[in-house]
């Protein structure tokens, strides 16, 4: 990242986006960078982060503005950005325990409307192609 930012031939000085992704099997952190010389955004993916303890180095020393982006990824996915001085919940309350955008966070069953019948059509989570067995298992129970 430091090379991309500082190298005079590259000069990717603008961080267009930073976000977390949960593919169901592993975690990713996706950066989109922009440079005045590049025709398109450069996509950098920190891949294969373990789901139980995802850790990546923070980029706040290059882009101070990534701080809230990293806080959001921490809040929604539980990804730890090492070096971010203010890594706490930003949307959810401080004592909240789970990570809402993870794929194993299924939206609750609308029990009052259809007891025992599983989630409504709108609330079904489409499992990813490479989802871990437990997610598929939960899905098949719901179906």
């Amino acid at each position: 990242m430091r090379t991309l930012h500082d190298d005079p031939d590259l000069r990717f000085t603008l961080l267009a986006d930073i976000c977390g992704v949960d593919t169901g099997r592993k975690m990713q952190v996706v950066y989109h960078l922009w440079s005045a010389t590049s025709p398109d955004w450069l996509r950098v993916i920190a891949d294969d982060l373990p789901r139980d303890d995802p850790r990546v180095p923070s980029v706040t020393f290059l882009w101070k503005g990534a701080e809230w982006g990293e806080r959001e990824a921490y809040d929604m996915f539980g990804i730890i950005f090492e070096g971010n001085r203010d890594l706490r919940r930003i949307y959810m309350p401080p004592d909240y325990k789970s990570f809402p955008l993870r794929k194993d966070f299924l939206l609750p069953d609308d029990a009052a409307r259809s007891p025992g019948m599983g989630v409504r059509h709108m609330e079904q989570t489409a499992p990813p192609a490479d989802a871990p067995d437990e997610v598929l298992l939960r899905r098949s129970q719901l179906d």
Partner: protein
Amino acid sequence: MAADPTRVRSLDDPTVIVDTPATIYDAVPPYPPQTEREAEFYTLRDGEMLINLGPQHPSTHGVLRVVLKIDGERVVDLDPVLGYLHRGVEKICENCDWHMAISNCDPLEYIASMFSEALPVLAAEKLLELKVPRRAEYIRVLAWELNRISSHALFMGWLALDLGGLTPILYGFIERDEIVEMLASLTGQRLLFNYLRIGGVNGDLNHDFLSRLGDWMSRAAHRIEDSQTLINENEIFVKRVRGLGTIDRATALRMCLTGPPLRATGIPYDVRRAHPYSVYPELEFGIPTRTEGDSYARYLLHLDEIRQSIHIIDQVLHQMPDGPVMAKLPRLLRIPPGRAFAALESPRGQYAVYAMSDGSDQPFRFRIHDPSYFNLQTVGLLMPGNLIADTMAIMASLDPIMGGVDK
């Protein structure tokens, strides 16, 4: 037994008697600090105190709560507290199909919702590699630019309102109301249009819309100049905002700013030119920039952008092609697997979406990059050293929309 004023029932649990009652107005959180920065913020030095601003302060443009650390009348530090409007749009979009995502994204940027509802549309079209009919593209550009003008008109009114001037916002609302009425006759809605569709737009131009537009266009340029003389030459206004909240180029890039705050520092990053989408490459328009980087520069930049938008609308009306307004698509839309990053230039900056599809009719990951969110965190850098009365002006000049900040 007489009530002991030092022993009060807790707000959370009335059966519990607490010594010092917690109130919703307490600035200090009722838990130990979780991070280095939080511990530093809530440690007060001599003469400093915390005050709580919001979440329902009328000048915060929504439901934003800011804890200010002040020393006398000067702001030393601040800690924005978000999440009062959080509804999990990303999760909702991952659990509904692509068409539903359009109306779910609508209220993100509720002042200019023609932009936020374009996110799933642009992402899906990029994944489908779909060619949208040219007439639909021109109608989109027309709607976007009209919406940009209405948003900018409101911005200028708000900025003056937060500085204590009541008149300009009335002028801002005149412009906005005319445009909103115009778009209502096109789309059927005044605020959340739900007009764009994957592959086109919901309906063709109609006579009512065109007559209103022609009527407005004949007066628009003149009216904008008219209302700007109300503020631009106003000595009090200029004295208040000039040099207020100045950002330099390097800091703007470091803080991930986009949109008018970035262009006010002199960096011509505009998604319409940097990564052209729709028919913007065929249109001729300039990207106004300023070099001062202060609130006044941001204000003047908005004026310049209104002029450019009027220029674009003029060209669009002259070049409007004939043809269909929707591409032929199946009702049940399955998007091919892949990843796409699509962005557009909203009135507040780069509105981007990073979408992943797994081949089903629902997005697999739908990441929304909101410019207000990234622009708002600059207040932590700009406020320290300023008067409390100026915090609102700085915040207004960054123009955050809390619907998008809290997603």
